[in-house]
């Protein structure tokens, strides 16, 4: 069936998957939480501008914040209720930074605003279809959360050879895509066809892992000649964009470039399902599948509204607060540790992983064993990057392609000295970005200062010039007249004063 040759990428890891913990049970629709927290920015790009006021009644699917700029998306209310607050709240962020959010207090009715689907999308212009995705607030449901319409629009500007729908869920524990495919294969196939129409690609592949046989069986009967299902080896990080493209095409995305430069567009299966809802029913992206798993009594998948607090999701799977548990948003390899259980589920949250406090060994010095370089899927030299990031050698870091690192965590996983390598890379990237930013800022203010100096000089010159002009151009007669006049005024004043004094004396 599959005519696509499978290639391989460098490195990677065969990991214990722990998928069976959560993928055997059907997903539950999560009950309404007592509050919904919607960050104004849930994706790469600019945050949205709020359109509502505190106390206002909103309905499910209503736009409550409008996009700001091209790489930005609207925010929709994910249930009906009252706006309780607009302010700073904790959001899923590796650095624990608070961000502007809109908080909704659900009224329990979950009433939809008036929505309308499209009967025949094939008659629609691809660009109109793309705008519909944008208005539905669809951003990548995989990892980075790139606004979907941007990828699509780039697609219409360049010829798209290949559309890849990524159903490769390579991180251990996570099964939300697997469950989604098994439960709603029709949504995915229909959504895929819609995206296919929107980008006008010549070929379309749904890539899926070998160890997801049930999902494959669910999809197969729905597929036609237009979509090819390709099984790829289960090896971490197979689901990463560049690695999957290498596997499917044998070609590497040029470093610093995007897949679209090779005529390839990739979307997540979740995005395909969201596209289907947006087009055929007019529903914006208000909910998603999420895996709650790890050390809890009943791990399973949930369908939750975007903005539901993490605690609410975890409690449905029997989570109770215990000291010594650590909560990870995302998988064990790339997820981020959260301190605060009140952070909301956002569009890119795919997993809540509860683990016993990790018993990490003591961090020892690097002995340059090179195990990390062997597993790095980007063929970096992690041991050298570690060395250079410890010494903040930014030039060397750039020379060794620090920014090509996809932070997959393979290197940290195999390190015999227990060095959290990715952590050091994140710090170094942050440091370099900050420095570049301050350099731009400094050069900008220097430019402003120079301009200011120039202006001052110019003004001074002008002033001096005008004084000089007066003294030079002033004709002797005029000058004389002026002085004469002033003297006359003074005299008159004095006379007047004397007269007043005289009058007072007389009285």
């Amino acid at each position, binding site marked *: 069936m599959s005519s696509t040759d499978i290639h391989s*990428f*460098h490195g990677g890891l065969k990991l214990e998957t722990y998928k069976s913990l959560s993928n055997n049970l059907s997903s539950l629709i999560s009950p309404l939480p007592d509050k919904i927290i919607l960050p104004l920015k849930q994706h790469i790009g600019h945050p949205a501008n709020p359109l509502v006021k505190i106390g206002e009644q909103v309905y499910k699917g209503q736009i409550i914040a409008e996009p700001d700029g091209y790489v930005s998306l609207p925010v929709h209310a994910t249930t009906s209720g009252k706006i309780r607050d607009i302010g700073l709240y904790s959001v899923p962020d590796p650095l624990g930074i608070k961000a502007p959010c809109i908080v909704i207090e659900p009224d329990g009715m979950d009433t939809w605003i008036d929505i309308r689907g499209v009967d025949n999308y094939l008659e629609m212009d691809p660009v109109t279809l793309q705008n519909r995705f944008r208005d539905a607030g669809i951003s990548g449901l995989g990892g980075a959360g790139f606004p979907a319409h941007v990828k699509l629009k780039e697609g219409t500007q360049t010829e798209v050879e290949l559309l890849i729908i990524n159903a490769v869920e390579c991180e251990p524990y996570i099964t939300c895509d697997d469950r989604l495919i098994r439960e709603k294969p029709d949504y995915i196939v229909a959504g895929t066809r819609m995206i296919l129409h929107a980008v006008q690609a010549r070929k379309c592949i749904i890539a899926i892992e070998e160890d997801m046989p049930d999902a494959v069986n669910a999809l197969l009967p729905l597929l036609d000649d237009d979509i090819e299902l390709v099984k790829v080896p289960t090896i971490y990080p197979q689901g990463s964009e*560049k*690695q999957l493209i*290498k596997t499917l095409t044998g070609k*590497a*995305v*040029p*470093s610093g*470039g995007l897949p679209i430069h090779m005529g390839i567009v990739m979307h997540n299966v979740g995005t395909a399902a969201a596209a289907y809802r947006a087009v055929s029913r007019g529903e914006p992206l208000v909910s998603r599948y999420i895996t709650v798993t790890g050390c809890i009594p009943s791990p399973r998948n949930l369908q939750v509204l975007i903005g539901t607090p993490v605690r609410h999701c975890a409690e449905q799977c029997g989570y109770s607060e215990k000291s010594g548990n650590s909560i990870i948003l995302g998988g064990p390899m790339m997820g981020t540790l959260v301190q605060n259980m009140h952070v909301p589920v956002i569009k890119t949250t795919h997993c809540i992983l509860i683990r016993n406090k990790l018993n990490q060994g*003591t961090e*020892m*010095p*690097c*002995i*340059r*064993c*090179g195990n990390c*370089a*062997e597993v790095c*899927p*980007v*063929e*970096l*030299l992690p*041991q*050298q990057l570690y060395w250079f990031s410890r010494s903040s050698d930014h030039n060397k870091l750039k020379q*060794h*392609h620090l920014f*090509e690192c996809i932070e997959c965590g393979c290197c940290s996983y195999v390190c015999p*000295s227990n060095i959290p390598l990715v952590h050091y890379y994140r710090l170094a990237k942050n440091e370099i970005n900050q420095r570049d930013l301050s350099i731009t800022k400094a050069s900008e203010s220097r430019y402003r200062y120079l301009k200011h100096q120039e202006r001052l000089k110019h003004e001074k010159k002008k002033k001096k010039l005008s004084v000089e002009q007066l003294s030079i151009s002033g004709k002797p007669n005029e000058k004389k007249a002026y002085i004469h006049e002033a003297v006359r005024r003074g005299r008159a004043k004095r006379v007047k004063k004397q007269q007043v004094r005289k009058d007072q004396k007389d009285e």
Partner: protein
Amino acid sequence: MLQVSIALVPGILCYAWIMGWGVILQCLLAILFATTLESIVLLIRRIPVKAFLFDGSTVVTALLFAICLSPYAPWWANLAGIAFGVVVIKHCYGGLGQNIFNPAIAGYVFTLLCFPMELSIYPDPGNYPGFLDTIRIINGNFPHYPDAIAGATVLSTLKSGLHDMKMISEISQSPVFGVLAGRSTEWIAALWFAGGIFLIVRKIIKWQVPVVFLGTMFLISLVFYWFDSSHYPSPVFTLFAGGSMLAAFFIITEPVSSSTTPAGRLLFAAGTAIFAYIIRTWGNYPDGIAFAVLIMNFSAPLLDRLTRPRVLGER
């Protein structure tokens, strides 16, 4: 690191069976000196002693150094080498993971240059002094036992024989020659080989490095042997004499002072083999492994630079 020590044990025992108590005593002394000095330096540098002492790297350094050392060298030679290796080469360069040179080898070379005579005494295989005599000799009283330790190694016999314009066929009539290389000592080399296979099976070291090292050595010696077999020893002899086997599996596989890129590792191994052969054949020392390792140690940063792999999508 514990497994590396285990892999060394059969070879050490065989070495002791052939060369006597001196081997065991040198190993124990070296471990004692190395752990003591390491602890002191760690205390001074305020590094947690427990974690860093029990990672086993110090013991491996000590064992490798003791194996290189002559079994009947005086104790101060042992201490001097260990002190130089552990304190100067390892800790003055920043400690574990930051040494440019292999501490065991640098320590051995230091001792070899300081005490050349004391390091050249080897007994005839199987004809070694008793336990108490060994202690006396290591304590520095070796002039009383000149006959017991008048032996020569197979490489030094070869070198002096060639110097006397003899042919290899004549030299190999000497009782120090065995089937493959040195009589009895070839067994030690075979056990280093076995220990190395153990490490490869346990995935402690990678097979590529020893294979490239031994392969390069085999090829060079084959070329010269084919060219003139009366003046150049056979490839098998080259591999089983001196420190070739030990170096292939235990010394050049040390990651810290080697190159860190996959291709760099292989060049490191090949380079060590080439320099070792050159020094052994045309130099003044009977064996050249230690010097070759040091030469390649300081070429490692250059190798790292030249052999950086192309990242995915790099143009």
